[in-house]
């Protein structure tokens, strides 16, 4: 948890949501400070989409609450809902509408609708504004959805895998646009889910890891990148000394006299004790964020929280 005293733009407390007895979100607690960019990661079925849909007020929680600026959106009035925009993972936009019609339709709902930005993005992203959305490519449809969210000038953006399904070039372009748009919309709070670590690295200032419907850990992106290392300690004998553990270890394995761990090391001093053991050889390796994420998410185990029932994906 952030543990900051800043007012939370998004706050989720003890959230539970099940689908026909299968728990998709199981006691989720989460807090996104105003102006923060929060990335949710986790395996398929970890509960990311359900969590975002519940924050948006699309799903009704079984227990707990999800609030944006202190309001449950499912009960919120249009004035509070207007402060939030959403891009869904499934992209089921009204396919019979053209982008121009969709843009006009959405403009009625947002007082701060930025028609100039919508027109500009349509031009820059080469979207055929008069073509029915159903006839656009998947990438173009995704751009239309992001365009609508950005043009709303909402204070909070909830993005469920905003760049999924795009080719690398289109994805990079979309993320660039998103970063640029966020810079323009000063103070905009974003929560997004993704499986693409590069997007997480570029966009998120905080990363939350979800597993089986819960937030298992939360990290500042920069801290995670600079302080998470792979540490290997090789001892002279056959086994490590009794009770030895690598400080700050998140995950640790022992093979003979070799102890390997993914550890959070605020500085090299943390390993001073290990280095002081006679004959012990301590090696520290840097990790990419993707390596760190894979280590944090953990080994592939069967997911019992996966819900893919009637179009509902946890």
């Amino acid at each position, binding site marked *: 948890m952030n543990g900051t005293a800043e007012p939370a733009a998004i706050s989720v407390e003890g959230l539970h949501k099940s689908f026909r007895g299968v728990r998709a979100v199981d006691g989720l607690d989460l807090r996104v400070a105003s102006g923060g960019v929060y990335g949710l990661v986790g395996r398929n079925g970890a509960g990311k989409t359900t969590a975002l849909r519940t924050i948006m007020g699309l799903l009704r929680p079984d227990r707990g609450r999800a609030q944006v600026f202190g309001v449950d959106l499912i009960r919120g009035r249009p004035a509070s809902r207007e402060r939030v925009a959403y891009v869904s993972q499934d992209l089921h936009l009204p396919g019979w509408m053209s982008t121009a019609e969709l843009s006009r*339709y959405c403009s009625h709902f947002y007082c701060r609708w930025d028609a100039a930005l919508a027109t500009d993005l349509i031009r820059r992203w080469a979207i055929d504004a008069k073509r029915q959305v159903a006839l656009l490519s998947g990438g173009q449809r995704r751009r239309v959805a992001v365009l609508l969210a950005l043009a709303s000038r909402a204070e909070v953006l909830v993005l469920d895998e905003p760049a999924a399904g795009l080719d690398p070039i289109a994805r990079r372009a979309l993320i660039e646009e998103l970063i640029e748009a966020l810079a323009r919309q000063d103070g905009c709070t974003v929560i997004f889910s993704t499986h693409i670590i590069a997007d997480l690295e570029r966009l998120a200032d905080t990363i939350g890891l979800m597993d089986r419907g819960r937030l298992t850990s939360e990290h500042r992106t920069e801290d995670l990148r600079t302080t998470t290392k792979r540490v290997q300690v090789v001892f002279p004998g056959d086994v490590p000394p009794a009770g030895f553990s690598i400080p700050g270890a998140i995950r640790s394995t022992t093979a003979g006299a070799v102890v390997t761990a993914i550890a959070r090391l605020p500085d090299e001093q943390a390993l001073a004790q290990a280095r002081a053991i006679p004959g012990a050889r301590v090696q520290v390796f840097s990790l990419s964020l993707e390596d760190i994420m894979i280590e944090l998410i953990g080994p592939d185990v069967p997911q019992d929280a996966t819900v893919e029932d009637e179009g509902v994906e946890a």
Partner: protein
Amino acid sequence: MTAISLDGSGSADRSAAATHQRSIIRGLAWREWIAHRSLIGTAITLWFIGVWVIEAITAPATVGVLGVVLAAGAGMAFGGEEAREGSEEFAFSLPATRAQRYLVRFAMGWALVLALVGSAAAAIVVGAPQWCWGWIVESGLTATPASAPAGEWRAAVMFSAASFAISFAIAACAGSVNGVRNAGTAGVLLAIALWYGGQLLVAHVLIDVIPITALPMVQGATSLALMAVATYIALHAGFLIYVRKEGVSRPAAAGGGAWTLWLWLIIPLVLLILFGLVMTG
């Protein structure tokens, strides 16, 4: 203690909020218009031609049957369009409340059905098409206005209104594409059941306390009252369910079950037969 705004900002806020509400309602209405403009245009054209040009729609039974078919189609279209196309998640993520969505869509569909059926009934009863044609063609042949009892016209309008309301409520609450597709059929069947329910209720329960000459009138009034109550209950229950509906996208409609098509062919025929039986006593 209530804070009093000295600079008038409170009233400005209220005014801005009211403007925003109106904008939302306009947006929802505009969406319904562009989504259903071909249905609305086709229905208005056909009714105009049927009632005013070729004067094929002249009896309460014809108005009732066509009104019910229109009502079932409009009920599904206005009530379940977003569920059918799988865009409820997007729709519910917009700032309009579910209550606003339900009421705007109901008002537009209800207005279409009542305007067409009601205006046709009124025009036929006063002989307006004949009167209008008299200004253009002076043939010397004039037809007298339709002389069906007022109760039959009321039944035609009520059948259409009830079929629309029930179809709309079911379609709006449907969680699947098939649910939306069958809402029209269900609405029409329920309206028929309510009509005959009223007839049977009077015939079996009140037969001993009502003079035999007043029986048809009481039966008609009971059926109409039952349909009116059921319409209110369906709309109210539909509203309560819809405002609690969860916004989850489902795959859009792709082809329909053959049995649904058969029902659509059978229902107008059944209605025609039943109306014929009622009209002939």
